């Protein structure tokens, strides 16, 4: 497994840079991961999306369906790609500390 270095710590990530242990996720780590996703600054909208994803994951153990995300955050699919260029699954979920989405999604 590859590792990334954050605040002097070695953090385990998968081949695509998703952290392996969601429980170590913090705001600072999110900001750090955002930089790897070509997000220079986490704006209020970025946080709204990331917090929603993180909270849903804590409750249900999976990422929320994309339609639910857009409806409940009011951020459209197109806007998500503007916020996170690699999209909701690869970009936003990674920053929110979720594991990489699996299955036929």
């Amino acid at each position, binding site marked *: 497994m590859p590792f990334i270095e954050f605040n002097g710590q070695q953090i385990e990530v998968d081949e695509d840079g998703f952290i392996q242990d969601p429980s170590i996720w913090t705001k600072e780590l999110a900001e750090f991961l955002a930089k790897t996703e070509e997000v220079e600054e986490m704006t209020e909208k970025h946080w709204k999306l990331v917090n929603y994803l993180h909270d849903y994951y804590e409750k*249900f153990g999976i990422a929320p369906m994309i339609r639910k995300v857009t409806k409940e955050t009011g951020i459209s699919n197109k806007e998500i790609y503007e916020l996170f260029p690699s999209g909701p699954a690869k970009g936003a979920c990674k920053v929110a500390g979720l594991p990489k989405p699996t*299955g036929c*999604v």
Partner: protein
Amino acid sequence: MAGKNRKLITLQDMKKPQDVQLSAPDLNSYMKLPKPYDTVESQPALKEPKGSWTEKNITFLDGYAGIENLVRPETKEEERALVEKFLSGLEKILSDDTNRAMIQPLLLSLEYCAKCNTCSEACHIFEASGKNEIYRPIFRAEVLRRIAKNYLDKNRKLVRKWDENDPDLNWETIARLGELAYRCNLCRRCAQTCPLGLDNGLIAKEIRKIFSQEMGIAPKPLHEKGTMLQLKTGSTTGMTKPAFLDIIEFIEEDIEEKIGRKIKIPIDKKGADILLTHNAGEFMAWPQNPAAFAILFEEAGLDWTLSSEITGYDSVNYGIWYDDYQAKQIGTLQFKVARELGVKRIIIGECGHAHRAAAVSLDRSVTGEHYIPRESSLPLLWELTRTGKLKFDPSKNNFPVTLHDPCNYVRSMGIVKPQREILKVIAPMFREMTPHGVDNYCCGGGGGFAIMNSMNFAEFRNTVSTRKKFQQILNAFADTIDNPDIPKYICAPCSNCKGAIRDILEYYDATEKYNLQYDGLVELMVNALASMDRPYLEFLIEEEE
């Protein structure tokens, strides 16, 4: 003919040392795409591979890597283990005792090939690659055949121990063969065309099986995050019962907001006629599909239910792509859910490999007390259309539509007519792809490719394995491709195919530029329902707004 810049690859090349890469991705050598993607400049440039995996994984076949845990051995012992385990796995797949279900077609395919190459002409990956030798269907088979010939006797028992000085076999051969087993979509177009009925797709799958069962090597999305996660949580998406129920509640609200109808989706209804099973990816990525099924089934007054039991809400079975044992375990659990619910039959939603797994592959391996009739949803949907239980106003689908035929239920099960008869009723501008029906081409996502995205495998899919399908799509819409005001709908009634097609459209930016849209069949049916007072398809709703 090999591509312009390409040297002919021979079987001997498979054992070249790891610093020799047999072929390199090259857009100039690939099959030409139709307008507006007819120049290399109109296609996205290939990406230079980067990351630690380029040193670790098996990139020295063709520059791509698809299997996360197939890595270069670091010691002589590891090299030996790789080869020896492969050989013992080979003996097992060629033994009546350990491969009873597959041994007959496998032996026929290994022993009777006359190398006529009819299959090569039929293979979309071989054609799309510009006829790159390593992707020729019989090339892979021949590598396996020669190893078997050298190491097994007439009774198919291992008769030799591997010697590291063997001029014909080294660890690099095995490593390359492992990756090469994942350059085939298992679409079986080659098997259909073979004059002797031999199946090179099966050979690819059996190689995958050796790697999985004997060596513990398989793509992570198929095994660790696939069948293993499904056995643990009930779904390859990791969806648990509470998550499933949350999603269904959301879909019910969404239906009401979208079309103004209050629909209660039946869950765990004992003794219902139908247990409808969906690929759980539909709930996550395409909830409009299970919603459309609910709308149609309710309108037609069917006695149906979904299941919230573990494995009852995910019809996928990735086991059939790489590991029969995993396939059987999952199938058994899925059938058990239906038996315990007391339904009369399982109706399989729009998922191709779930059709093949539940209706065909498991027919011989899950029997007895778990037996339950399994049927495709397509003939049922045609029945509801034909008998007028569902009434349509086809003028609502006033845009060009083409149909993609999922290999798993079209070629493998012969379900060809229902979906076309429905389209003739609901889509006045329906046109076929060329060729179609049982002669269709794979979407390029088959055999697990649609969900294999680690390292640089997605680029192989988007540029090579889906290339033939993209060509067919562009040709089907040649009359209107230039006009971005006209939406062009690719009807793909299969979750896996939809995933592959979604990625093609995204990769080539074809929705944004040329208004190519895609979704399943039931969405198009709901859009044309006479009783609906507003459009159902997302791109029509957006247009209105």
